[in-house]
């Protein structure tokens, strides 16, 4: 302490003080820092490794004379056995299940989040949140059979057996919606909770009702966080595998009818790779191409989400 004051006053520190100020290595500090760096680097390296593998195998796929990038992106038939590799049936099925998932999870999740953060008493909150978290803990295989043995019969009962096939993208999508519901709810609620109390007070003090406050002050102020929640939930829905593998159908089909069977990208990968697949065959490599497309979609969604958060984040002063 004395040395510090001596320095501030501009006096020359004595030689012993100078020795005290010398930099000395702090070994265990450095060891911890190294370990933490290693942990961070590991996840980056893993990601890089995955991208590398995906890229290499896809490269092998596109390099072969049987398929071109134009055919891959420009045609609507996916039949590897006869050499037709148009990705759209798979992408289309994924988009349909995701759409139905959002149809369920978006309104329900947002309303639940608003209820929890703006209306619910502490007692209701503390009992509702664990239930929601339980929903997140159910294995997806259970969800898959829930779709196949409960939601599908329900849809068939309502809309008629000739309308709804046993395997269909709608019921898989609805159940994916239930799966991502806790994700949207809890992230959106966090975003709503992060809106400062003072804004709510300002609103109430101007004679706003709870609904006016929630819908026109709190929700817009939480836009960035809520949007990020939704986008992450979309990524989750796009990547969901087990439910679609069980309930959506087992065969690529290019259809916009949600009550017909169709196979999503993930569903196709899991079905094909589950059978006998010889290494280095076209089929084998095509899976990596699909995987790469999946990766690019979720990667793009993540970027959009980050952009959203930065673009719309409000800084409250």
């Amino acid at each position: 302490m004395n040395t510090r004051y001596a320095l501030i006053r501009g006096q020359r520190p004595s030689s012993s003080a100078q020795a005290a100020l010398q930099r000395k290595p702090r070994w265990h500090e450095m060891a911890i820092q190294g370990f933490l760096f290693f942990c961070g680097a590991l996840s980056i390296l893993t990601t890089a490794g995955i991208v590398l593998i995906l890229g290499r195998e896809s490269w092998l796929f596109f390099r072969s004379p049987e398929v071109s990038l134009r055919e891959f992106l420009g045609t609507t038939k996916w039949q590897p056995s006869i050499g037709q590799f148009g990705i759209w049936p798979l992408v289309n099925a994924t988009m349909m299940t995701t759409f139905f998932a959002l149809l369920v999870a978006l309104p329900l999740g947002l309303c639940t989040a608003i209820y929890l953060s703006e209306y619910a008493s502490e007692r209701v909150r503390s009992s509702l949140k664990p239930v929601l978290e339980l929903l997140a803990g159910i294995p997806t295989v259970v969800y898959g059979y829930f779709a196949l043995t409960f939601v599908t019969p329900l849809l068939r009962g309502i809309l008629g057996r000739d309308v709804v096939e046993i395997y269909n993208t709608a019921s898989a999508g609805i159940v994916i919606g239930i799966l991502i519901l806790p994700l949207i709810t809890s992230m959106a609620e966090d975003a709503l909770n992060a809106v400062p109390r003072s804004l709510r007070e300002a609103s109430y003090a101007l004679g706003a009702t709870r609904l006016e406050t929630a819908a026109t002050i709190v929700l817009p102020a939480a836009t960035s966080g809520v949007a990020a929640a939704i986008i992450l939930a979309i990524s989750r829905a796009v990547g969901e595998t087990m439910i679609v593998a069980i309930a959506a159908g087992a065969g690529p089909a290019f259809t916009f009818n949600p009550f017909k069977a169709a196979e999503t990208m993930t569903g196709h990968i899991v079905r094909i790779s589950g059978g006998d697949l010889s290494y280095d065959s076209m089929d084998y490599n095509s899976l990596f191409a699909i995987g790469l497309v999946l990766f690019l979609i979720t990667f793009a969604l993540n970027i959009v989400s980050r952009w959203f958060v930065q673009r719309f984040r409000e800084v409250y002063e």
Partner: protein
Amino acid sequence: MTAIHVLTATARLAPVQALAAARCESDCALEARQLSVYYGAFRAVKDVSLKIQRQKITALIGPSGCGKSTFLRALNRMNDLIPGSRTEGEVIFEGCNIYAPGVDPVEVRRRIGMVFQKPNPFPKSVYDNIAWAARINGFRGNMDDLVEQSLRQAALWDEVKDKLRQSALALSGGQQQRLCIARAIAIRPEIILMDEPASALDPIATLKIEDLMHELVKNYTIIIVTHNMQQAARVSDYTAFLMMDEDRAGYLVEYGPTDEVFTNPKDRRTEEYITGRFG
């Protein structure tokens, strides 16, 4: 008539006094009767009775933690929003107890506005901050005129007339606070509660707010909480001095015209506080 007399005039009235009380009723914008506020088991305000004069500025002063903000927030039922809070006693506004069953706190807050310690504009444009407040209160009319008029009344128009579409968060702290005042008066309340409105501002911005209060009091009744005694002395017509007892519950020590409270306090504790011997 001094406000101390007004205070005692609430109960047990002889006919003559009743007449006096009735006359004062027209000057009285708001009256707290035996008002107590609890947070859970903790009593933050104890039996405060106080009559607020119409179109005057009343300052609530007292040491920190004495419950003056809590008392202020009880006057437009803002404490309702705090889980576990409870209010006893009455607040009479236009002949009606705002804590009576069947009274809608939303309506109460439309008539009794509030400005907070920290400026809290909405993350919307300057224009929308005011337009939003007017719109939710059912305003139908020329919004541009209302916005301009409110901003002029809040002495902010000249500074922001070219940035109406910009975010309110881009304004300086003092401008934000005047925007909050503009927003509060856009819905034409009868009373404006101000909870240390200048304590987060620099001296010049503070002065502007005080000047503004002098303007506003021509049309509104203002109640201000402040921990700055010079400010209370500068701006207010009436001053109420609150203190806390050994259980940290706030109670009213003295209430009267500001001149009297500051120059000739009746209570020794008021004198000690004002002369800076504690608090």
